[in-house]
């Protein structure tokens, strides 16, 4: 996943020497033609149920994430093009200890699921927001927005405490991770990477260029994550986790890990959690708190956006904090 800057001719040569402006078009067109030629071979493969199921899951995860990704890159493009640098950082409290909870609470205003918040968090860091606050926003936005809470209420009829517990535990986990990140002081993990900036020009063009770039970047990693999630779902039957349903400690761990490998959209995970009736409520709360914060799709997105070294620290940290917050909240409220 090492991403080396792909500098090409025109940057080394000051003259506008892009001799073949249509190269990209040719490559894309060639791929499409190749696809058509290889079609019979792939149709043959789809006869195998495991292959068919994998490709259905892969496409399903990718397709349902795209509208949310577009919402995310629209916001990230707008931040890059229309918001003067430093303006958002100035809106947040100066002190980090206050900026982190403020940013985490602001996450409630973004009606989307987890894929959209990664490019936004990245642009927030670029716009001068302290990383700990941007990360708190990244974690809280997909978990505590009104749409996700409403779908949780629908999935758990007659159990309003589940909605409250999800809100409290997710917000607490986002703030806690932000504060731990402040204490760790490892902003260097995400600072070293080259950050893409749009060329200065008309604002609309900057907006479009940023939105396109962020969409391609996040979309590419989304494809990696969707492939990983589809593979795990195909290889590991869900019934495997049933063995742990009777032991409270094991069930908490099992559903935490299930949330990581299923990589469900945060707007849908409550319905799956509602179906996991053999598990105690606290374990299902863990599933709902961990899912929007750490899963294979998100790890791929975060590694791509902030760097693999960042993800290697951030994902385990978030997992532990999220499980702890969910267990404590479940013990208190459920």
């Amino acid at each position, binding site marked *: 996943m090492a991403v080396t800057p792909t500098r090409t001719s025109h940057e080394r040569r000051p003259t506008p020497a892009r001799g073949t402006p249509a190269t990209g078009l040719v490559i894309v067109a060639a791929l499409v033609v190749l696809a058509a030629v290889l079609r019979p071979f792939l149709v043959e493969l789809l006869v195998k149920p495991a292959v068919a199921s994998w490709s*259905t899951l892969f496409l399903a995860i990718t397709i349902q994430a795209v509208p949310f990704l577009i919402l995310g890159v629209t916001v990230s493009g707008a931040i890059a093009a229309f918001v003067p640098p430093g303006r958002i950082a100035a809106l947040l409290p100066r002190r980090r200890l206050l900026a982190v909870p403020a940013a985490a609470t602001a996450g409630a205003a973004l009606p989307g699921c987890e894929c959209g918040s990664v490019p936004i968090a990245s642009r927030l860091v670029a716009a001068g927001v302290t990383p700990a606050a941007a990360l708190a926003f990244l974690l809280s936005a997909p978990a505590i927005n009104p749409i996700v809470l409403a779908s949780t209420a629908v999935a758990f009829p007659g159990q309003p405490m589940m909605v409250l517990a999800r809100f409290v535990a997710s917000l607490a986990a986002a703030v806690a991770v932000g504060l731990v990140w402040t204490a760790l002081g490892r902003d260097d993990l995400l600072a070293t990477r080259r950050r893409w*900036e749009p060329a200065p020009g008309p604002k609309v063009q900057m907006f479009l260029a940023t939105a396109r770039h962020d969409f391609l970047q996040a979309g590419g990693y989304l494809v990696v994550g969707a492939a990983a999630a589809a593979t795990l779902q195909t290889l590991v039957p869900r019934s495997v986790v049933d063995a742990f349903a009777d032991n409270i400690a094991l069930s908490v761990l099992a559903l935490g890990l299930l949330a990581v490998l299923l990589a469900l959209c945060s707007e849908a995970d409550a319905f799956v959690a509602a179906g996991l009736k053999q598990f105690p409520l606290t374990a299902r709360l863990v599933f709902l708190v961990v899912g929007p914060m750490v899963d294979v799709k998100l790890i791929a997105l975060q590694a791509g956006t902030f760097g693999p070294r960042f993800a290697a620290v951030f994902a385990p940290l978030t997992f532990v904090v999220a499980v702890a917050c969910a267990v404590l909240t479940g013990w208190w409220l459920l």
Partner: protein
Amino acid sequence: MNEETGSATVLLVGVLLARLSITDIYARYVRVEMGPWLLVAGGLLAAAGLAGLLRSLLRPHETVLLSDHHEGHTERIGWLLLAPVVALLMVSPPALGSYSVDRSTIVIDDSGTTFDALPRGATVPMTLLEFDQRAADHAGASFGTTPVELTGFVAHTDDGTGFVIARFQIACCAADAVAAVARIVGVTGTAPGRDQWVTVVGTFDGITGGLPELRAADLRAIPAPVDPYE
């Protein structure tokens, strides 16, 4: 990935998404309600891709000058977006079927709901999920003798006493699918094969081995419905 390749990719993804949303095929992957959103998303992507493509094709010089001190290139990872595009262009993978029923948790849903008794007389069509929920409510007392009509695909073929039909519920996309199942008994003649879609009319016949049973009076093989999920 340079500017025009990136724009072309965005345009292609947008066009494919919009096209997918106006065929019925998207219902195999996401909820039917997502259709208009996919169309909007595809339109926006196509517009953004087209704008970038036209700009870099019509005014390459300006682009170069403008991106003098800036990274004019998108990371290579964007190429991967072509994978689902190519997959969809070539083949449209089917909706989840019997293979996935065996690999997901089968939920006999005791929703805790108390159901009103079904009206007597006419046949009542219902989802497999509702059939399971009614079966779980006071051992299926709400069914009475009213015939119900169920639609699903064959998950387990005939074992001599009956076969199992299933249908997935999805909340968002196929990745969160959970199956509702029912056992069909009392079918005379050839039982349908695996993954064949059927509509069965019959009466509730108790719960055996954890599976609610329907004693079939009428069984018809049907083509797969446009929306394969409940």
